[in-house]
């Protein structure tokens, strides 16, 4: 499963970078995340629960951060186990760039999914992945940009 996207976030690059490396922010933004611990140096571990239609699955995963260019980019690699539901293994590239309005964040994901979920849900994998990624970035953007009311103060 390959996926990529770009979001423009109205916040300075240094702040976006800091929050991307912050376990509290990540835990709040990852859809269904119940536990998240670790650090950029040691890597992160997480427990994520998702319900989609009739399917309910709990995934335990770990990611490592490497190829760090501070304030600019990093490479994530990791894997997750969902018990009988299946497993995932993959990597992602995250790149930050300055823009007039703030920061442009670009992500590229390559993942392989296996097990029951991948076998039975093949027709839905792309849509569900995109939906979860969108949810993550919506929350991340909201965390950084603050609630809409704040923006209205000119």
């Amino acid at each position: 499963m390959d996926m990529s996207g770009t979001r423009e976030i109205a916040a300075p690059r240094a702040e976006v970078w800091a929050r991307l490396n912050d376990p509290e922010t990540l835990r709040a933004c990852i859809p269904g995340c119940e536990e998240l611990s670790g650090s950029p140096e040691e890597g992160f571990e997480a427990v994520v629960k998702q319900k989609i239609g009739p399917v309910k699955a709990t995934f335990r995963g770990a990611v490592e951060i490497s190829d760090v260019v501070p304030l600019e980019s990093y490479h994530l690699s990791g894997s997750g186990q969902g018990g009988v539901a299946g497993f995932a293994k993959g990597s992602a590239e995250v790149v930050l760039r300055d823009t007039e309005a703030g920061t442009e964040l670009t992500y590229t994901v390559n993942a392989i999914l296996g097990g029951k979920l991948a076998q039975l849900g093949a027709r839905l994998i792309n849509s569900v992945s995109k939906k979860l990624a969108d949810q993550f970035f919506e929350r991340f953007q909201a965390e950084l940009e603050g609630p809409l009311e704040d923006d209205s103060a000119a």
Partner: protein
Amino acid sequence: MMYDFRFTRPSDVNEAVAAFEASEDAAFVSGGHTLLPTMKNRLAAPSDLIHLAGLSELKGIAREGDRLVIGAAETHAAVAASPIVQDAIPALAQLAGSIGDMQVRHRGTMGGSVANNDPSADYPAAVLGLGATIVTSTREIAADDYFEGMFTTALEPGEILTRIAFPIPQSAGYAKMRNPASRYAMAAAFVAQTSGGVRVAITGAGAEGVFRWAEAEAALGASFDIAALDGLTLDPDEMIGDMHASAGYRAHLAAVCTRRAVKHPGQLTLL
């Protein structure tokens, strides 16, 4: 090897709701053709199954003035075979008759299908295309307010869909291309001429499930013929892409289905 769960047969809707609220992690089961395979594959393990398909309150097919009212527990086979449905909205009867296979049609129910809102299912296209009203254990919901995305509806946990009231249209047609193995819609269009204008509901193609194609509705409202659809396209970025069909192909297919539904009102057309 069997996993434990409690199976409850409530005698009415109130008991069913109470049973749901009293349990740790319950699931309603109607026809079971979505839930049971999921459980067999260990992708869901509810503590309680609450059986709805036997409830007499959820049965019934009747014409009430200018509306066709169908109980949530009516099977696809019953809807397809009903002379009342065949007379009032023949495309709906034929849509029901095209779902899955015979075994599925004799267990699967309209309520289960609409409560689940699979992005490739058929009934959501009819419900949205006809502007139906979804009646639940607590309220009534207009079709336009009911579908909230893939597998997501306005139903609250524990809220039971009891029946659906379909306004009888001047005409309605349904055209679909079925996946040859699963018979799910790879793309399908339900086109209805209603008292409130033309409605076009697309299923099988959109990444977020069933949706109304507003551009096509406006064009057909001005002139109800396939020429009105010339040049109108759907955005591949919003379509499902998988091993069965690319997003671009589904966008194209959905438009073709819309034309076929316009060309053949009063029936189901299989591509």
